[in-house]
């Protein structure tokens, strides 16, 4: 066991998988000598050589296409898209190509590609650097969308993603990179894909969140516990496809649910969660499903970020509202 930050856990996972499978390749903009703009790939080129860890020209669509071609030649590509806001440049490679190949070719080819990309607000980045675009990605059949909320899951989910034979979009929360530390095992381990985690058990209400909002929800649950309110907190971990069983089981127990996301309200993950509960768990409910989200504007200018992002008090207020409905 070693104490590691969220980003160190990611580097650790990458190092272990580069070391254990010589078909893995890590590449992207500035990931080589520079070790990535956040240092997620720090030291990996020095350790594994330029053949395995390399910089690409500055073109996201090229990075996506390169991944597909390398997968065809038997490699397991781990490309980095420097910021999630840059995926629009390579959406064809993701949505139009790699996610479709297994289906398109009747299972005769597959694409073991793990795309890593940082996202999430609160660090005052320029435009297109902090947007939560997981809602777009969740509509793509054949693509898993995975995001960890803590260092343990960051390492285990990333290793599971790299070992999976289908494309995974792995979202790394910028704000969590260095703000969280935890003791995690030194050896390789996996955290299962397609499985949500009940990170705090409770009986009165289900707070269903992912990424940074899991930690906010845990704080709210802690606060409410002092008043004798028992909130269950679920970390989705895989955003698409959803772990329906875990969500429904929780709502069956609590009868109340709040779905929480940092993204704008329209067409996001929380909408999928609410729709699932409406479709398959409506009769469990004693109150409408609550949702916490950002307003439906473009991601705001840096100085307004803290006013725009859904904060802990909004989760608390919404939770109280649904509890007393």
């Amino acid at each position, binding site marked *: 066991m070693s104490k590691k930050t969220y980003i160190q856990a990611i580097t650790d996972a990458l190092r272990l998988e580069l070391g254990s499978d010589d078909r893995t390749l890590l590449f992207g903009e500035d990931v080589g000598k520079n070790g990535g703009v956040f240092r997620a790939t720090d030291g990996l080129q020095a350790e594994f050589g330029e053949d395995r860890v390399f910089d690409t020209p500055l073109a996201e669509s090229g990075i996506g296409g390169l991944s597909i071609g390398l997968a065809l030649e038997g490699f397991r590509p781990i490309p980095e898209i420097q910021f999630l806001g840059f995926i629009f440049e390579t959406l064809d*490679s993701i949505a139009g190509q790699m996610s479709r190949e297994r289906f398109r070719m009747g299972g005769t080819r*597959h694409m073991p590609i793990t795309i890593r990309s940082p996202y999430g607000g609160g660090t005052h980045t320029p435009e297109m650097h902090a947007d939560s675009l997981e809602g777009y990605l969740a509509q793509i059949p054949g693509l898993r969308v995975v995001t960890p909320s803590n260092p343990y899951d960051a390492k285990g989910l990333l290793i599971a993603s790299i070992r999976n034979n289908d494309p995974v979009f792995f979202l790394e929360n910028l704000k969590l990179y260095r703000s969280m530390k935890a003791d995690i095992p030194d050896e390789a381990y996996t955290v299962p894909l397609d499985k949500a985690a009940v990170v705090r058990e409770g009986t009165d209400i289900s707070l269903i969140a992912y990424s940074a909002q899991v930690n906010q929800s845990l704080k709210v649950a802690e606060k409410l516990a002092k008043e004798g309110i028992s909130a269950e907190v679920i970390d989705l971990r895989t955003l698409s496809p959803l772990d329906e069983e875990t969500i429904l089981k929780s709502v069956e127990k609590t009868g109340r649910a709040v779905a929480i996301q940092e993204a704008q309200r329209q067409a996001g993950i929380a909408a999928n969660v609410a729709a699932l509960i409406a479709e398959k768990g409506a009769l469990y409910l004693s109150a409408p499903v609550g949702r916490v989200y950002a307003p439906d504007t473009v991601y705001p200018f840096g100085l307004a970020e803290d006013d725009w992002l859904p904060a802990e008090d909004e989760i608390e207020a919404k939770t109280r509202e649904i509890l007393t409905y």
Partner: protein
Amino acid sequence: MDNEQPIVDFSAIHDALGKNFEPVQVIDGQAKVVKPEIVAKYTNDQLVEFLKLMIWERTLHQRSNALTRQGRLGFYAPTEGQEASEMGSNSAMKSTDVLMPAYRDIPQLIQHGLPVYKAFLWSRGHVLGNEYPEDLHAMPPQIIIGAQYVQAAGVALGIKKNKTADKVAYTYTGDGGTSQGDFYEGMNFAGAFQAPAVFIVQNNGYAISVPRRKQTNARTLAQKAVAAGIPSIQVDGMDFLAVHEVTKAARDYAIAGNGPVMIETLTYRFGPHTNAGDDPKRYRTKDEEQPWFDNDPLIRYRKYLTEQGAWSEAQEDDYVEQVKADIKAAVKQADDAPKQKITEFLSNVFEEQPQNIQQQITAYQAKESK
């Protein structure tokens, strides 16, 4: 001040752009040998095999056209006029090379190993048409213009990393495709990695209705490779031997570890863009078309080999009948393909089925067993 000489003469720079591209030709439109030293490398029997490839493609086109009209094929992008460009280049490649085709490159895909009935199933919209055995080194026809170029760069880099000798990635697009960002990104990536790729542009004059001259201010499409720092060439795309020899040289250059090459073939799409309602009369004139029809790649090779006493009308008739019989058998085989099932589609979204897929497989199994 107005009369002062500017520091740079942009007009002169512009005038010089792309002037160094002279299309390579071996046998001209009148069947006259322009480069006897190239023709001398081949026996008449070998040249007959080349002619037969073009006749095969033309026959495949004619039958595909007819089958589409009868409603027996689905999507079809006519290839007539592009036989020298397509067969000339493809025949210079090896079956172990990786082909990344677009939707007009079905003849190359078949010559690379895709059974004709599978090509027909692809046209109809049946997944069996895309189920490729391990040893078919190709991807299904790309629909998104230019996407195959960035993927070809990846395949080529993979070949280099695998240290596989005597193997390249090769890919095709049209003149319109050269306007896409992926076209340049693919060439630039392959160039930066010095990866063995051959990028072929079939300049057939039109991107559906938009003529080549409206795609770009560039004098040639070949010069677009210059910016990526890779060598390129223009070739008479109606001249099989010229295309074949240029492609062979490109392949040799790439496998020697020099990096990628780009080839622009100057050809013409005799027919419509696809058989889904495109009418070339809306955007081009008979006066423009006729010289190209006269420049038919089959005419010059048929004429040359007939003059050599190596080919005859009777031989051609026999061969065409044989090709037609093969196509007929392929249609029959395509007709025998089983109906597609939604459960099978669902099973091929992921290797390990998540809950939503499992639930939907169960639901559709119930429907399909009725």
